[in-house]
């Protein structure tokens, strides 16, 4: 680990590495969507459209920057990215940055609370399970979270939607809002729509974290300072949450960072089931329509999010882990 280096040097070498990775990714983002057979222009014209004269198609291609040899397109694309121009979506007919902004916030609106709530839930349940390990509580928690971890999430999503949305009618049948509301009513409406997908994501995130926390807490069980704290007469709970949980935070943060990208794009299936207008559904539709600019932009932003998450995780890890202080 670079921790032995001077901190500034470590940061600098990491930054250079990230920049190289980012460049490779930008290039792959250009290439990968173009591997797929199919022509974006024809998608936009629609099912019954008459292609007509080839000149019309050529004109459209030129308009969308799809004309000329591939390498020319590539350098044009690189140039545009340097200028901060992510291009124009063929499918949404708006700048890519706008389309991504619209969808990213809805994914974040699910993912950020899910990560935080999931971590909290896992911290509490994991710590309790570890403290009272081999008790009924521990076995109950472990079995529940492990089952959640194992079930395909999109299937669970469909079952939840069917049972709580359709049969019981407690929650809406997907989407983020019913529209026609403003102010507080709007926030409440969105919250109501979020319950099922957020609940599902939170529990599935917690299922993973639970195992991490439980293990970390068990590993310090019996260590000197914990025993000492107990000897000093601190209550069980105080010892648990002061020392044990804190010890589990570092690995929790690492795991979350590593998973962040997976969660960000992994909500795709859940978004499809819940008609959630997030990044996942946007990417899925863009793949179907061969909307290269949107795919490039979305993959780019996810990569950046991942790199930032990794970077933060490294920093936070150093800050949290007693061994590195």
């Amino acid at each position: 680990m670079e921790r032995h280096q001077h901190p500034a040097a470590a940061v600098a070498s990491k930054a250079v590495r990230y920049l190289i990775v980012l460049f490779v990714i930008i290039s792959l983002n250009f290439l990968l969507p173009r591997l797929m057979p199919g022509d974006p222009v024809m998608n936009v014209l629609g099912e019954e459209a008459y292609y007509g004269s080839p000149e019309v198609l050529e004109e459209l291609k030129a308009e969308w920057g799809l004309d000329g040899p591939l390498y020319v397109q590539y350098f044009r694309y690189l140039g545009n990215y340097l200028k901060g121009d992510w291009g124009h979506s063929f499918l949404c007919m708006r700048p890519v940055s706008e389309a991504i902004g619209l969808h990213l916030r809805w994914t974040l609106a699910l993912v950020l609370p899910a990560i935080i709530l999931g971590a909290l839930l896992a911290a509490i349940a994991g710590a309790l399970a570890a403290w009272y390990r081999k008790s009924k509580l521990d076995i109950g928690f472990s079995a529940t979270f492990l089952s959640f971890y194992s079930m395909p999430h999109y299937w669970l999503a469909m079952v939840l939607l069917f049972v709580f949305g359709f049969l019981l009618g407690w929650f809406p049948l997907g989407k983020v809002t019913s529209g026609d509301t403003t102010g507080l009513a709007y926030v409440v409406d969105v919250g109501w729509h979020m319950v099922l997908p957020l609940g599902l994501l939170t529990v599935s995130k917690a299922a993973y974290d639970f195992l991490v926390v439980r293990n970390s807490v068990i590993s310090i069980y019996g260590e000197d300072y914990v025993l000492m704290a107990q000897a000093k007469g601190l209550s069980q709970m105080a010892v648990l949450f002061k020392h044990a949980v804190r010890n589990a935070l570092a690995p929790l943060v690492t795991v979350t960072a590593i998973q962040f990208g997976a969660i960000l794009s992994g909500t795709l299936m859940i978004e499809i089931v819940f008609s959630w207008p997030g990044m996942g559904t946007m990417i899925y539709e863009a793949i179907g329509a061969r909307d290269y600019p949107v795919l490039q932009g979305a993959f780019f932003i996810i990569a950046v999010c991942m790199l930032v998450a990794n970077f933060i995780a490294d920093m936070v890890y150093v800050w949290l882990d007693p061994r590195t202080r």
Partner: protein
Amino acid sequence: MARLRQVMQGNKARWAGIAMLVLFILCAMLAPWIAPLDPWEFGPAFLRPSTTNLLGTNDVGQDIFSELLYGARNSLLVGFAAALLSVSLGAIVGLVAGFRKGILDDLLMGATDVFLVMPMLPLAILVSVYLGPSIWNLTLVIGLLWWPSTARVIRSQVLSIRESGYVESARALGASDLWIMRRHVLPNVVPLLMAKFVLTVAVAMLMEASLSFLGLGDPIAKSWGMMLRYAFLRGGFVGGLWWWYAPPGLAIGLCILSLTLISFSIEEKSDPRLKRVLER
């Protein structure tokens, strides 16, 4: 995911996992003999469970129970084959990178960095569209995209072994790389690979279920993901036909559960240092 071992310390959990997995594998292998009906045979649609059709029939009258048995074949096949591919790839990259420091290491680790920050599921969808639908392409996609985490773990394991005293002294005594690899590295790395392999089978099965659900699998081959796709698109959920949509989902879940339990028990037996490696 490396952490459940103490919970399931007792042999009970491990054996439950192994028993379940063996049961699924038996179902898969014996499907042609134990399936009561031909799952490709059309007939009266949407029948409720009965003695003839234990789980009823689907939208074109195929026997769901037989589909489930045959589905185990492709779901497990893709899971194991993809995991084998990805873990082998990861192992090779990890070993090479760990042994040959320098430019090769930098290149290989750069490649894993790139893969690790790409959104996997969208990428898998994209590559599946490119390759076209078949069981083997699905395997290829999953296998080729899931090697980086293995590579990383193996590399750090190799590095820590390399720097250990006994390897240094073996090297000083003139031992060849190959000899060191065989004598010291492989024995330490194999249990790690086993645990990784079992977990990757689980990941690959979930991925297969997702890609098939999106219609990117072989449409004729029976798999659990494909069954869920039809249940979703052809009225299984909205009609409340639980005998159609529940079994494939539960089958996937139980398979993953059994694999997870097994992976914990493998880890438990192996080098204690493993724990720290897997954490990262």
